[in-house]
């Protein structure tokens, strides 16, 4: 949500983050409350959401929460209208109006039913100015359809107001059928392709409805006034959501050429979505192996409008990489493998509650301070860096002492902290293919690492990433940290710009015109670079200088 609820106490609000312990009968969560966000906004990004049926204006009164201890802003006008004086006196508040002035404890008697959807931090997303020329069907939706995640936002295109954002796991992952892995290993049958495509459509509408029900309080009339849905994504997912089988992706001749992704059944699609006026638009991928999600990243970061050289990497199931030399763009993608999204490793997780996200000599830290359930990518990279420093792990990827069948326990009493030899192997190959691709594109562009003005890391992967660990294991070239930018939701931000900025399509076209797509499978030096980058050590500098 971009809208911050009007709040009488805002001027007195403290500047620092406060620690809140929020309990329901099911779970207890520890979260940092940001001074500019309400308790509801903070909880919307977690597994423990309050009930809600308005955009956080205090008009629905659904987000009741009990304050147990701590200092808070005084009740707002909205709360005094919605709550009985005795409830207020007993510490009952509306989460959308509530801000903490100290560390605090809160109790949520009736949390929202469990949902896979969470809100995104909107601070790095697109700022729209609105378009008065749009007079009917004013609502619009931007979607970033990834292999493992779906991110989306609903907008009033006329006013330029973002109504809400959400992200969730792509259901094809939840059902244990990682599409890219399977496209690689075996041909998906037509039924599988159609099912994955349909699931993605259902998931997107589910996310839209979650926003409308919680952030607007009405669904059907808004769907009827939905004028445009714009989807960016990787080529495989875009092909499948259009209702095509993945067959065209198997043909090597398609890998480097543009693949047309157009819905085969737009009318039926609109009918099922109950969005009769929605123009469902697929931002076309650059090539068979480079999706429009990379194009959206480039739009969001504005790299191609700069005169200095820059490198952009969007880590995911497929890692897409682009090098900009000031005039031209070199783009490619490599199989990051599941290593960067935590799926497929023995104790791998996406960045969700309970994921070990940071590891240092002093201990492990999990998301939401919940009980550790496994590693997300950033925690795993920290763990490898630490194991190397402590010489438990050698640069070859072998353990100094072969671990037992339970794996190497980073914390003795925590089975979910176990790391296995096969995890290291997967990671080595993923990081080597990425590092080699960066080096190869730089070489093609005639650039050296130290000439890069900026390195952009896109995708949720960068959210918790410790740069020093990434340098230590050789995942990223060692650059001064002020020249590295992390932009977690760049693809969605770019998609929003494409949806809302009238100049967006021209900017996109300009990027496409300047892009050269490189199929690294056909580049012999790439293989050498790949093998040279398999060792767990900082990137070989000699080659880059």
């Amino acid at each position: 949500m971009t809208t911050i609820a009007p709040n009488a106490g805002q001027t007195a609000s403290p500047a620092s983050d406060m620690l809140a312990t929020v309990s329901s009968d099911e779970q207890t969560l520890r979260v940092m409350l940001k001074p500019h966000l309400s308790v509801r906004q903070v909880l919307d990004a977690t597994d423990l959401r309050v009930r809600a049926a308005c955009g956080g204006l205090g008009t629905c009164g659904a987000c009741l929460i009990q304050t147990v201890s701590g200092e808070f802003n005084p009740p707002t006008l909205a709360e005094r209208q919605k709550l009985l004086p005795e409830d207020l006196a007993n510490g009952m508040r509306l989460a959308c109006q509530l801000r903490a002035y100290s560390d605090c404890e809160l109790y949520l008697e009736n949390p929202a039913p469990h949902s896979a959807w969470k809100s995104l931090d909107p601070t790095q997303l697109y700022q729209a100015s609105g378009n008065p020329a749009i007079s009917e069907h004013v609502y619009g939706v931007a979607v970033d359809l990834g292999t493992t995640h779906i991110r989306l936002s609903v907008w009033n295109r006329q006013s330029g107001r973002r109504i809400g954002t959400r992200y969730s796991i792509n259901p094809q992952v939840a059902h244990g059928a990682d599409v890219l892995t399977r496209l690689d290993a075996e041909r998906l049958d037509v039924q599988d392709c159609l099912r994955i495509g349909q699931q993605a459509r259902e998931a997107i509408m589910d996310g839209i409805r979650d926003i409308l029900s919680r952030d607007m309080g009405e669904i059907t009339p808004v769907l009827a006034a939905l004028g445009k849905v714009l989807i960016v994504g990787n080529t495989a997912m875009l092909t499948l959501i259009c209702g095509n089988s993945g067959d065209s992706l198997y043909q090597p001749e398609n890998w480097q050429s543009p693949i047309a992704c157009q819905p085969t059944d737009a009318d039926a699609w609109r009918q099922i979505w109950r969005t009769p006026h929605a123009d469902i638009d697929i931002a076309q991928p650059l090539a068979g192996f480079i999706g429009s999600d990379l194009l959206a990243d480039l739009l969001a970061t504005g790299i191609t409008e700069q005169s200095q050289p820059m490198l952009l990497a969007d880590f995911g199931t497929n890692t897409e990489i682009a090098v900009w030399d000031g005039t031209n763009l070199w783009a490619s993608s490599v199989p990051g493998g599941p290593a960067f999204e935590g799926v497929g490793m023995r104790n791998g997780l996406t960045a969700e509650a309970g994921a070990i996200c940071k590891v240092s000599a002093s201990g492990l830290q999990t998301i939401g301070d919940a009980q550790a359930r496994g590693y997300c990518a950033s925690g795993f990279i920290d763990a490898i860096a630490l194991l190397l420093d402590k010489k438990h792990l050698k640069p070859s990827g072998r353990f100094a002492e072969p671990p037992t069948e339970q794996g190497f326990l980073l914390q003795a009493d925590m089975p979910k902290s176990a790391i296995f030899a096969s995890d290291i192997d997967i990671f080595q190959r993923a990081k080597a293919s990425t590092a080699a691709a960066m080096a190869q594109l730089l070489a093609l562009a005639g650039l050296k690492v130290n000439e890069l003005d900026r390195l952009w890391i896109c995708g949720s992967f960068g959210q918790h990433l410790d740069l020093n660990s990434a340098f230590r294991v050789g995942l990223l070239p060692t650059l001064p940290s002020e020249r590295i930018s992390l932009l977690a939701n760049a693809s969605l931000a770019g998609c929003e710009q494409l949806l809302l900025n009238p100049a967006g399509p021209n900017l996109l076209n300009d990027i496409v015109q300047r892009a050269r797509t490189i199929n690294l499978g056909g580049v012999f030096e790439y293989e050498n670079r790949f093998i040279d980058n398999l060792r767990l050590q900082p990137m070989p500098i000699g080659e880059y200088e």
Partner: protein
Amino acid sequence: MLDAYIQSYNQAVFETDKQAALDVVNQALSDGFSPEDIVFKLVIPAVELMMTLIEKDPDANLAQHFMTAQIAADVTEKMLEKFSKPPEMIGRVVIGAAYGDLHSLGKRIVSGCLKSLMVDVVDLGTNVSAEKFVDTAMTENAQVIAVSAMMVHTATSEKGSLGVRALLQERGLEQQIKLAVGGAPYRFDPELYIQVGADAWAPDGVTAAKVIVDLIREVKP
């Protein structure tokens, strides 16, 4: 004797430390050992040792296979340049990824090990037609065609190994040229190599080199 170097070279290979391996070899050279001795008494035994180790080492991973094969190939190549006369090669293999398959890295491990075992490798790259495999094997007098396939449909396609088998049969070459296959699908189904008409298969690139050397010896005792 070379004994002092063997241990540190084997250690460097085990640690996948290419620079350390090259340092050992260069030291041996400057101490007066011949490039021939280094290859036949140091490098080749190390590759053979590695083959045995990798079969037994539960901790060995694919990344290590890539690196060890690369070290063997690089060191051998550097030494071969210094040989007083070209070495006698034990045979020749034509290798490539099957038609429709763009995965090139798997066969790198095989090529690296084969080169260090004194096998000539003709690498046709990726997406290679059956005709090209057989035509090249004929003109190059190769004893083995090795077809890598990383996807089920490229492994089982009529244009892949099956196509090579059909051409070998058609041209009456089945006694002179053997067919080896490898790649992920064969690991899932150990009987698959028979279905696609191959004479042999191997579960990993290092073992594949051994299997190919055995096939060469069948044809060219």
